[in-house]
């Protein structure tokens, strides 16, 4: 490996942070697409210089940008996300039917095997795929047309499909998560979908154990163990050992089990990271202390990682797509805050330092290994 590249999406543009494998000194380029909201950008795992970017604003809508040279130059590709057939309705915040309307792309997930194939999770919640490098997009209507679709409701951030996990052991299997519907899985490459929410409990819905309606914030999987999933839910950190068929809580001794991101250590499938946030109405860390919590036991038992992180007067948030892990040994852990800081740990979380402090509010962080 020659280095590490961090792709940062912010409220006002994208930034690319690059270092050698020591991860001590970082070059920062950007803002790319200055002034635009960059919800997410991510590179192809098999062709790292192929990057896909979700670029949007309330004024000018959605664009998808592509780079074939690691972000040196960009090319706008296709931005037509058209729902298949008659889109129908979902529930609005007040419970009334609301037409399905495309708003933006929240997450782009490049294929594990083909650099021209990329998945897009969008608001209002649906899954699209491009097989021509982002030029054209086709929906998987079987997800949106799941019988529960008319009862899905938006979370506070909109009704977004924000998480896409591709099973490295089974190309027919994908997991997605929708706020606020829950987890869905396909075992036939996207034709049909099943809710995977058994064991979730959410107080904010009429039936706390409902099949759908849960505000799942993020899922994580280690590629060596695709049947084990971790979840940061609106409240509760959860774990599934059977590919989502059932979930159990592993919040353990966390100071708050509310939060957004969750991620897995690169080499230890039972080592996971979360960043507790005080509550859904107070989107900042408990006690003004920014602490990453690490469990080396797959949940239940958590240790606070604080060295190098602000331990007083810190009231930032860390959003669901704003944490990433590199594949070095020891692995690096990175996250971005709504205050514009990118914090990095080159020792699996034991200590932290900011790479940069004053970016616009960070929406997403992705990490690439450079060959």
């Amino acid at each position, binding site marked *: 490996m020659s280095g590490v590249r961090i792709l940062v999406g912010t409220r006002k543009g994208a930034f690319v942070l690059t270092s050698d494998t020591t991860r001590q000194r970082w070059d920062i380029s950007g803002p790319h697409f*200055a*002034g*635009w909201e960059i919800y997410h950008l991510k590179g192809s795992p098999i062709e790292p210089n192929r990057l896909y970017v979700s670029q949007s*604003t*309330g*004024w*000018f*809508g*959605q*664009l998808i940008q592509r780079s074939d040279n690691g972000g040196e130059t960009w090319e*706008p590709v296709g*931005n*037509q996300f*058209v729902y298949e057939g008659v889109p129908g309705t979902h529930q609005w915040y007040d419970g009334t039917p609301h037409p399905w309307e495309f708003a933006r792309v929240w997450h782009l997930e490049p294929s594990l095997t083909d650099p021209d194939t990329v998945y897009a999770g969008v608001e209002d919640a649906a899954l699209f795929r491009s097989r021509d490098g982002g030029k054209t997009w086709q929906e998987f209507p079987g997800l949106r047309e799941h019988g529960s679709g008319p009862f899905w409701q938006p979370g506070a951030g909109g009704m977004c499909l924000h998480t896409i996990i591709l099973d490295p052991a089974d190309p027919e299997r994908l997991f997605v998560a929708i706020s606020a519907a829950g987890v869905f899985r396909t075992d036939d490459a996207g034709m049909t979908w099943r809710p995977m929410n058994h064991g979730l409990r959410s107080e904010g819905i009429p039936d706390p154990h409902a099949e759908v309606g849960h505000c799942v914030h993020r899922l994580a999987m280690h590629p060596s163990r695709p049947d084990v999933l971790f979840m940061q839910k609106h409240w509760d950190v959860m774990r599934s050992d059977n590919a989502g068929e059932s979930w159990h809580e592993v919040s353990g001794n966390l100071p708050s089990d509310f939060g957004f991101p969750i991620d897995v250590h690169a080499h230890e499938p039972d080592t996971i990271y979360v960043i507790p946030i005080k509550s859904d109405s107070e989107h900042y860390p408990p006690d003004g202390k920014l602490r990453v919590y690490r469990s080396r036991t797959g949940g239940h038992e958590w240790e606070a990682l604080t060295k190098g992180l602000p331990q007083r007067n810190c009231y930032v948030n860390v959003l669901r797509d704003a944490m990433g892990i590199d594949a070095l040994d020891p692995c690096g852990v990175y996250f971005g805050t709504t205050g514009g800081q990118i914090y990095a740990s080159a020792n699996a979380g034991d200590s932290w330092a900011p790479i940069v402090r004053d970016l616009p509010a960070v929406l997403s962080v992705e990490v690439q290994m450079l060959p």
Partner: protein
Amino acid sequence: MIRVILPTHLRTLAHVDGEVHLDIEGQVTQHSILNALEARYPMLRGTIRDPVTHQRRAFVRFFACAQDLSHESPDAPLLDAVATGAEPFLVVGAMAGG
């Protein structure tokens, strides 16, 4: 020749400086200007109007001759001053925070 002034973000996206000059055959309307604009700069498709319905995006406005033309029919003939190039057709991002 039609003169079009784009907002900063769209000039950056289209890699243009200053005004865009378009030649349009037939009647000059919002619709014909946007068709010609998008034909020359395909990256602008979807940024000013919906790519399928052609409905103007909510926070985009069209101004010319100190008038807001945003709510005029997209197929209505535009003012002579725009059609002759004496005055530019402005595409404006509405003042809406952000």
